[in-house]
């Protein structure tokens, strides 16, 4: 187990800069999720930690030791690849024992370690199978087993669940989390799925275009997104983000229509351009509220999502109560101002005090 420090790390592929100075501190035993849209450089950062890509600038240290020039095998990390990268010509047992075999571990040790990992992962019955004879979830587990037997200081996962179907993904999510609880090994987990990030992480690092947008605990990011990007990326259904101006103590969206109440802690001057944000679940039905012409109703059972137009703005609400309105009719809604967000019109930075 170890801390991982990422100091102003940069990456260029030829003349293209992919990472522009990334800083992340990871505590011992922490489960950190790197999340961001596809192509933002998450895998690249992970592979730099693993030693599979060289580091163009900055420093990566594991357990206090700078590893920039340490070869991958000596970094004491284990990685689970998106395609699992199981050796197709080796049985499950040999896949898991491969690293020990290379290190010339005694046979009893190998047998023990493989048995232990197999027990943890429920793979005991599959030890003599080849990867091709396994289902997706089983392959995923073997890949984790291969990592476990090495007792690394850091586990690295690169989108390990993206090849699984939705149901299995939920199950494996819980299993990985459970594994972390038991082994308490520092874990860095890459995903583009914000739900995975929210449900698994102790700490989330939101990345976008080679920059870190925000680092924080899942609910911190949900409650106080630092900028428009994080606000729109975290949460499903996504936050309503209306462009407009601050006018007469309220928010006036572009395209006309009724004004919206500013959050009490908003620090904005009169006439300033801003983006007004509120989550669909923080919208409630209110008789004298803002009228919304309904364009779409999506009941999911536990809640109903309603999309519509309030003047020039399109908004979405998620309501626990049953909605009787139909498409074309008008409902009246009001966001909770205390839970609304205001972002700077140009920089996109958060304008709320807290």
């Amino acid at each position: 187990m170890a801390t991982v420090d990422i100091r102003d790390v940069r990456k260029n592929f030829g003349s293209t800069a992919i990472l522009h100075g990334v800083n992340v501190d990871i505590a011992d035993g922490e489960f950190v999720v790197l999340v961001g849209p596809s192509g933002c450089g998450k895998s690249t950062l992970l592979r730099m930690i693993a030693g599979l890509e060289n580091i163009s600038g900055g420093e990566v240290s594991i357990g206090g030791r700078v590893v920039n020039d340490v070869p991958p095998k000596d970094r004491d990390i284990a990685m689970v690849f998106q395609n699992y990268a199981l050796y197709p010509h080796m049985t499950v047992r040999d896949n898991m024992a491969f690293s020990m075999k290379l290190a010339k571990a005694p046979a009893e040790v190998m047998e023990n370690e493989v048995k232990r990992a197999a027990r943890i992962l429920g793979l005991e019955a599959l030890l003599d199978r080849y990867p091709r004879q396994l289902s997706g979830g089983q392959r995923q587990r073997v890949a984790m087993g291969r990592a476990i037997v090495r007792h690394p200081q850091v586990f690295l996962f690169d989108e390990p669940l993206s090849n699984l179907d939705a149901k299995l993904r939920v199950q494996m999510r819980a299993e990985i989390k459970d594994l972390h609880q038991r082994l308490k090994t520092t874990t860095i987990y890459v995903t583009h799925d914000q739900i995975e990030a929210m449900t698994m992480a102790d700490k989330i690092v939101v990345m976008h275009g080679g920059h870190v947008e925000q680092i924080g605990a899942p609910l911190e990011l949900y409650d106080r997104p630092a900028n428009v990007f994080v606000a729109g990326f975290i949460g499903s259904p996504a936050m309503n983000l209306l462009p407009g101006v601050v006018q007469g103590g309220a928010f006036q969206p572009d395209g006309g229509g009724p004004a919206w109440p500013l959050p009490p802690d908003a620090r904005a001057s009169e006439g300033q351009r801003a983006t007004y944000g509120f989550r669909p679940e923080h919208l409630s039905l209110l008789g004298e509220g803002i009228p919304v012409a309904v364009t779409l109703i999506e009941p999911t059972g536990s809640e109903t999502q309603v999309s519509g137009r309030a003047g020039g703005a399109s908004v979405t609400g998620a309501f626990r109560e049953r909605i009787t309105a139909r498409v074309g009719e008008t409902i009246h809604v009001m966001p909770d101002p205390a839970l609304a967000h205001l972002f700077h019109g140009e920089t996109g930075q958060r304008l709320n005090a807290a």
Partner: protein
Amino acid sequence: MSASSPSAPRGQDLPPATNWRRPQINQGWLARLLDSKTFLIIACLTPALGLLMVFLTYPLGLGIWLAFTDTHIGRGGVFVGFENFESLWYDWVFWGAVFYTVFYTTVATVLKFGLGLWLALLLNENVPFKSLLRAIILLPWIVPTVLSAIAFWWMFDAQFSIISYILVDVLGWRDTYIDFLGTPWHARWSLVFANVWRGIPFVAISLLAGLQTISPSLYEAALLDGASSWQRFTRITAPLLMPILAVVLTFSVLFTFTDFQLVYAITRGGPINSTHLMATLAFQRGIPGGQLGEGAAIAVSMIPFLILATLFSYFALARRKWQQGEAND
């Protein structure tokens, strides 16, 4: 789900729908015939079977029949049973050809695979000018065999050989020109060399294709597992390359064993029959020598060797256990 929703209810300004339906088409007899499976099977198989009969089975059958007759060119023969084979049994030229064919095949195959694998591994790395290198490596293969044979013939010439010129006149390592094709062992090795030069591209390019099917993430996983580059080769590359290696090996052995052009163009089997392959000897006896029956018998005696090579490939190619089931990535 997202915050942006359609700007206006759709479907208001669409043109009215027509009530056009796809009409039922009445098929003619031809269309129905072409839809019949039995007809299609017969229609598609007949030409293929016909071609096979005419161009494969008939010549092969005729060759085998000739081997049991005493046919000469210009004179039909009669069935003589195993007489041709009996005379071959006591024919040291024939046994010399058998020896040289086996020698030629074995040595050339080993060299082709050693060097071909090495080249393939090299080309699979990130070397500069990769595509240019690949094109250059393919060159020996696309030059017509007879052309390259003539080029080698010049290179191996007793007086004009560029190899001798370089060794004697440029580097000064030797005093005399080498008589490449004049003495049996020199000639044998020279031909093996020419065959290797010609055969490497096929091996290298096929193995390169095999190497490129191996997922790079396997090497990365092995790297993290602590494998050195030699271990990555022996534990990952070699076993995963084995299936395609077996195919390429079989083809290479078959092609080398039945080689004719190179040897016939460079030495015609000489000096003193030392470089006859079974194929060149069969031709020599059958066509210029006129003894079709005996030539055919030599050709037929290649068959057991070829069957052996095919059997090898059959067993080597049998899908390994780990190859069964769905792909990993």
